[in-house]
Each structure stands twice: as C-alpha cells, then as structure tokens.
C-alpha cells in the first residue's frame, strides 16, 4: 500500500492556492458527461452533492434515512468555527490552524489543517447566503461564542441547533439540484459494497431498505461521506444508524484505514440508567463553566448529594488541576470521571456517574442568571431524568462521541483506492488524536463545499476512464457478495429463536468489550485480552444470531445485523491500532505512557505518524503502514493543565 499524501509544494499559506492552480480542470460543457456517486447526506455529503451538481456533473446521492435532511449532522448543537475575527480578538487563519493542530495533539497534517482554516470563512458566508439563521447581535452583525481549546470567540451558532441549521442549508441546496434533475436522490438505501473496475472505484451496490432489492449503480468516481463509527461501542451520542459499513467495505476492497483507535469520549453526557438504554445524550460542555464536579470522599456513601457536607466531598478536578479546575480538556475530564468510578466512588443507581453541581454558582450569581445561561440544557436534563439541576446536582458520565480515525485520504481526499474519496467524519484527515469543539461541522462543510470540487476535476481531468455497465462482471460479483453475506446472516434463523442470540445482544457485548479495553484509558494487557476475546464473539454472532423476517422487505433487524457484523470485524483493527500505539495522545491515555504526575505522555520520537491499516483478507492479520508526520511550521509541545 503506497501512502503518498500529495501535499503541494510551497509555503504553508500558499499550498492550497498552488494546488488549485496546478490541478486539472474539466470544461463546463464536458462536466455533464461525468457521473459521480455521493454516499451520505450529512454536512459533507449534502454540500458536496449540491456543489458538484451546480458545477454541472451528474450526481447520484444515497442515504439511509427517509430524507437527506435527517443525517446525523442534524444533531450537532454547539456551533461551527471560522477565523472571521469579527470580534477583533486576535484571531486569524494562522491561529485557527494552530489551535486545531495543537488540539489534535500534533497528530494531523499541517497542510490539511491549514487549508481547513483557510476555507473556514467562506463556509460562513455560504451558509448566510443560503438563509441559515445564525445568532445575531442587536446591531445585526453575527454573534460568536467561545469553545474549548481556544482563547478567542470564533464559534458561530444558531441557538443550540447549529448542526440542524447548517444541514438544512446544505439540504436546501441539494433539494434545488434534485428539482433541477442534476442530482438523483436515493433515500433509504444502504451501501453494501464499492465496486472496482481496473482497480478504480466505479460504482456501488446498495440494499433498498423498503423493498430489500439489491441494486447496482455505476459512476466515474465514488465519494463516501458516511460519518463516524462511534456506534461500534453500542452506546454513544451518535444517531442509531451511524455505522462503519461503508468505510469498512471500502477498506476490505483496498482502502487504508487510518488511526481507527482515535475516538473522542465526551465528559458531559447523561449517564446510563439501565440495560435497556439505547443511546446517550450529550449535555453541552459549557456546563463545566459553572458546574463543580465532585464525588463522595467515602466509597459507598449512599446519602442524598444535598445531605453530603462539603467536608465529605471530593472536588477531584479542582484538587488535581488547580489552574484549570473543572475546565480541563475533554479527555482529562473524562478519564478522571472514569477513574473515580473505578475507585468505587461513582454515584447514582449504576454507580457510573459523577456529580456536576450548580449550587455554588446559583448562590453566587442567582438562579435567574444561571437559567439564562443553561435554561434549555437544564430543561432537557429534567425531561430525561426527572430531576432538576436547580434542586440537586446533575449526574454526568463520559460517552463515546466522535471518531477522529477514518479512511486514510491524501490531500485531495482520495483514499488508497483510485477514484474513491472520503469526506467529513468518515475520513481521518484534520483532527489528529482529538477534535476540538465546533470543528467537525467546519470540516464537513469545508470538504463538501470547497475542497472536493478541485479534486474531482483534477481526477477526471487526468484519467481517461472506460465506460462501465451494471452488467459487467465486477458489478455482478459485488452483487453476489452482498447477497451471499445477507444469506449467511439469515442462515441460522429458519429454525426459530430457541438457543439463539439477538443482534442487540451481540452488539452490546462487543460494545462493552471495546468500552472496557479500548476506551479512554488503555493498556497492553487489556487490549490483548480484548483481541483474544473477539474471535469467539464473532463466531457466536455468525453461528447463532437470530434475525426474524425476510430479506425482500423492510427488515430492521437485518439492517442492524449487517452493521454489527462489520463492527465486529472493524473492532479488530481498532484494538490492534490501540495496541500498536504505545503512547498516550489526544483523547486516550495509554497507561504505560504517563508522566510522573500520572498525566498523558506523548511520544513524538516513536509515534509522530498516522497508522494506516491494510486489509489482507479474512482471517489474515492486517498490516500497519505509517505516514510520518512532518512539522515544518509548528513545534509540537506537551500539554499541561496543572
């Protein structure tokens, strides 16, 4: 597997311009001859589909949900970053670049991150022009808020629904192109396979979720914008349909998978309350501005939190990190919460929670001020838990939230399969080992609106592609593979459910294994034991899973089974990747790699690289390749929050 990052020459600030100038173009009249498949309609896929269609390409777009507007991006709350410097507080492209690369703990490419910062401002302009109702100041100018990892106010927002509004903007642009006939939209389709002809991506095979039909589509190139794989852990803040299937199918056909173990665990989520729990809800981390995190000092202290006097409380973040206190970064807050619970000090019915207490803030600022800041979050919390944070402390616990890892792409966003591109959360490109708040939305839209069209023209302009048809061998083989896999999934079900397992039971089992061993803190022993346990779970799944119903109809159990089957395979490279990375960095602590003060210790000498996994066939051990990271413009520094 060859990893050529294709980083353009020139000074950092000139690379993108140089690259655009050196890239090939496709003449407007010729663009309609090209067909492009886009899988996914989140921020990345919807914006890419609309933009490419506007430019004249014929686009076919696919999504799982019943409407492109319902992609998981819709759930993003907080905001989107841009280097507008509307607040004249010293922001710049250079600073946004620096904060993002530092936030990623120096595990991403300088050139990619710099380009992201460069195009960030155009994203805001684009969204405003579409009618996205961003928050405004009384004078009519755009309002900003600040987010973690930055000392400037550069986050644009639309109430607590920024993802929704940005997605509806991209969806409206997409809808306009559907109306014009430039985009053919395929809702309720799940991509099951990517089809290669002459080593290039030339189409996909999908399952129609309504009819169960297996369908084949051809194109000149394929773009994947299929989101993140956080649901490998079963419980996460991701939407239920979020999956690794599209990326994993591509991986098995030859696309390198980068840093699969880089997963972000968000510290402030509503804790799990029972084994029926289906997903976790994020509470904005802005709450840590006023909330104090604590657990009882004594193990097994069952008193109501309001009855526990200060002397018996352990404000562990304030004690351990006097200068940052409750505002330590996400990974530090998450890890410490887990540590307290592992010590047996967790609270709530499951003892997997810590308190986030607003009593002192309310005493200091008054209830009204606190409600103005957090009223909607308090309400949401109360709706879910039936407890008011005004009367007793909130309970929070970390949850899987975002996956920095993803398909390896070069500067053009092309995977190691020619003609197959990856955009948004499903690629690995810009966030290194940790993503800063409000930068995933930025990256999705940067990729879709402003980056991919250059790559598309350059790819089509430099390659001459022969005509393909869905009756070609490659398509028929891919179709057979998909049908074979579905039949294999269904093979245990004829005899009824007795002695079988359900899809969810296996999903929970693999999720727990990953959470326990490949979560925020990892060690060699745990990872090795997880790796040893995986084959048995996989075997149980394939030999015992019971899936009611048929394939040629709506079958939600079958849909989930297909996704879980891929998570089971994928889990192996997650664990192997975590094992191979013997340093702590970004979101994860490798327990063997700590400072004397028990803080994360990065190891630049040995691990300043992207780990890229190559599939070697079912049952064969995957191979890891390295893309060495080169820092010419920034000097990696160690973080300290003491």
């Amino acid at each position, binding site marked *: 597997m060859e990893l050529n990052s294709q980083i353009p020459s020139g000074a950092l600030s000139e690379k993108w311009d140089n690259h655009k100038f050196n890239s090939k173009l496709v003449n407007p009249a010729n663009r309609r001859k090209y067909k492009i498949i886009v899988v996914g309609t989140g921020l990345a896929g919807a914006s890419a589909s609309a933009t490419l269609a506007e430019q004249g390409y014929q686009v076919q777009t696919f999504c799982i949900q019943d409407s492109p507007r*319902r992609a998981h991006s819709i759930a993003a709350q907080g905001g989107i970053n841009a280097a507008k410097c509307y607040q004249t507080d010293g922001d710049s492209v250079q600073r946004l670049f620096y904060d993002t690369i530092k936030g990623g703990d120096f595990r991403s490419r300088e050139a990619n991150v710099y380009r992201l910062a460069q195009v960030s401002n155009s994203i805001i302009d684009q969204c405003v022009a579409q009618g996205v109702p961003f928050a405004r100041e*009384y004078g009519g100018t755009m309002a900003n808020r600040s987010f973690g990892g930055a000392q400037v106010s550069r986050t644009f927002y639309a*109430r607590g629904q920024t993802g929704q509004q940005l997605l509806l903007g991209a969806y*409206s642009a997409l809808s306009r192109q559907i109306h014009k006939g430039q985009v053919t939209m395929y809702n309720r389709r799940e991509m099951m396979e990517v089809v290669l002809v002459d080593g290039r991506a030339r189409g996909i095979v999908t399952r129609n979720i309504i009819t169960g039909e297996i369908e084949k589509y051809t194109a000149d190139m394929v773009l994947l914008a299929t989101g993140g794989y956080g649901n490998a852990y079963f419980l996460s803040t991701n939407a239920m349909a979020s999956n690794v299937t599209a990326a994993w199918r591509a991986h098995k056909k030859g696309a390198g998978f980068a840093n699969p173990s880089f997963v972000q665990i968000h510290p402030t989520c509503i804790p799990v309350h029972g084994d029926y729990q289906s997903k976790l809800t994020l509470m904005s981390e802005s709450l840590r501005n006023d909330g104090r995190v604590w657990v009882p000092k004594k193990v097994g202290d069952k008193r109501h939190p309001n009855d526990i006097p200060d002397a018996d409380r352990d404000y562990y973040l304030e004690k351990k990190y006097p200068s940052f206190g409750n505002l330590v970064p996400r990974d530090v807050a998450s890890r410490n919460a887990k540590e307290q619970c592992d010590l047996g000090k967790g609270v709530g019915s499951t003892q997997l929670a810590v308190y986030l207490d607003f009593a002192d803030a309310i005493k200091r600022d008054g209830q009204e001020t606190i409600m103005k800041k957090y009223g909607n979050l308090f309400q949401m919390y109360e709706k*879910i838990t039936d407890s008011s944070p005004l009367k007793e402390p909130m309970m929070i616990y970390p949850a899987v939230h975002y996956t920095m890892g993803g398909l390896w792409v070069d500067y053009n966003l092309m995977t190691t399969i020619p003609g197959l591109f990856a955009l948004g959360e499903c690629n690995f490109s810009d966030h290194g080992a940790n993503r800063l708040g409000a930068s995933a939305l930025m990256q999705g839209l940067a990729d879709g609106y402003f980056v991919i069209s250059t790559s598309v023209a350059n790819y089509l302009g430099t390659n001459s592609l022969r005509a393909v048809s869905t009756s070609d061998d490659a398509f028929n083989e891919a179709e057979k593979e998909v049908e074979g896999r579905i039949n294999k999934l269904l093979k245990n079900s004829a005899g009824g*459910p007795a002695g079988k397992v359900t899809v969810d039971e296996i999903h929970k089992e693999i999720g727990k294994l990953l959470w326990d061993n490949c979560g925020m803190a990892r060690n060699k022993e745990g990872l090795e034991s997880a790796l040893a346990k995986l084959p048995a779970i996989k075997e149980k799944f394939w030999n015992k899973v019971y899936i009611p119903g048929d394939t040629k109809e709506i079958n939600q159990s079958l849909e989930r089974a297909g996704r879980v089957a891929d998570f089971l395979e994928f889990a192996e490279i997650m664990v192997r990747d975590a094992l191979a990375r013997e340093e702590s960095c970004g979101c994860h602590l490798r327990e063997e790699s700590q400072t004397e003060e028990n803080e994360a210790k990065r190891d630049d000498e040995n691990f300043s690289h992207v780990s890229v996994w190559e599939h070697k066939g079912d049952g064969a051990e995957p191979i890891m390749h390295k893309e060495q990271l080169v820092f010419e413009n920034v000097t990696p520094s160690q973080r300290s929050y003491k």
Partner: protein
Amino acid sequence: MSDIDLNLQIWRQKKTDSPGSFQTYALDKISTEMSFLEMLDVLNEKLTKEGLDPVAFDHDCREGICGMCGTVVNGVAHGPEKEVTLCQLHMRNFQNGDTLVIEPFRSRAFPIRKDLLVDRSAFDRIIQSGGYVSVNTGGTPDGNAIPIPAPTAELAMDAAACIGCGACVASCPNGAAMLFTSAKVSQLCLLPQGQTERHQRALNMVETMDKEGFGNCSNERECEAVCPKSISIRNIARLNREYLKAVLSEG
C-alpha cells in the same frame, strides 16, 4: 423510579397495499425511566425471542432533532407530553395498567410502508419546489455584509426549527401540510437573502403541497398543539399573506 405493566395495541401492516389491524401485546415491568422508543425496543427484543416479527418504526437521533420518529399514541401525535418528539417521551408519563394505542401518522400523502413506518417524501418534494435561496457555492458576500436585526434572526430561527416530522399533518383533520410549508416560507421571507425569490417560492411550494395530496387549512390549530418544536400558526398567516401577494403580483 418504578416499573409499570402495559397493554399495547399496535397497528401492524405488512406492506403499503396490505390490510392492517391492531394487535395487542402485554408488556410487563417497564421502567418509568425508559424513553418511549426504548420501550418499543424492549417489546421488539421480546417479540424476536418469541419468533415473532418485531414492530417496524422509524427513529435515528433519539434526541428530538432528526424528525425521523413519530407515531400517534392514544390519539395524540408524539404522545401526551407537550413539545417533545416520541423519542423524548418518557414512560413516567404513563401509569401501571395503562392501555396504549399506537398507530402510524396517517395522511393520504404519507403512505404506510410497514407497521408504524410511513413515507414522508412528499415533504422533500415541497422543499425541492422552492424551499431554498438559489445561490451556488462560492462568490457569496461576507456574512456581515447585510446586517440582520437580532429579533428578525430569532423569528426566522423560530420557523427554521421545524424538524419535518409530519406530526402537524397527522393531527390535522384535513391532513394539511400548512404548518410545515409555512415554516420554510416564513424563515426565508423574513430574511433579506430570501427576498429575490419570495413570490415564486410561495406559489411553487403551495402548488406542490396541493399536488401531493395534502388538504386545506381550516384553522383547527391541531398542528400547533402537537408540534414538538412549538412552530406557531402565525407562520400560516404569513404564508397566506405571502401567497396572496404573490398571486397579485405574478398574476
């Protein structure tokens, strides 16, 4: 926290053109901490283990924003709690021994695909006919070039908060899509960016709405009452004004 026993009557229908009927299921020991959809998950897991076909229902984000979930519970879209989607409805809203009648959103324009799962693509086609500002990517003016007063932006945001779930249509005695359509028309006609195409937009979206088989508005206000995002029927008044102005100016 406590457990309750429930009697569920759920609409089962195999396909769009097959007949449907209510089936009764007893479901015991449901924690009141569960969300409504988690209760359905528990039911489905139970049905699966009994070798029966689980109930098909749409859902995705499970935090009230994607607009994918929604059924009618005891006659009310998204159930008894105000301003929530079905995924945010918690079982503490019900009592031990309650009977819950659960059926899909019904409308001529929303064909049932299976059980509680319906096809709302008519909403997409309404948006496709004009629910946008026709700008291409790139070459747009600076975000601050046109000031927008905060109250205007807030009003546009109130309308833009629509999640397209279809509860409004399911609750309207006429099956009208006026609240949905008016929310998009309002958002764009309130903002300076939406001015250029304002007349054509109203005409096209209303025409598509009619063509898709949605009914007329007769001010029943049921839509507003069930809307999980509190979209106001003032938007409908605004749409009516927009439409009238458009008819007068475009002939």
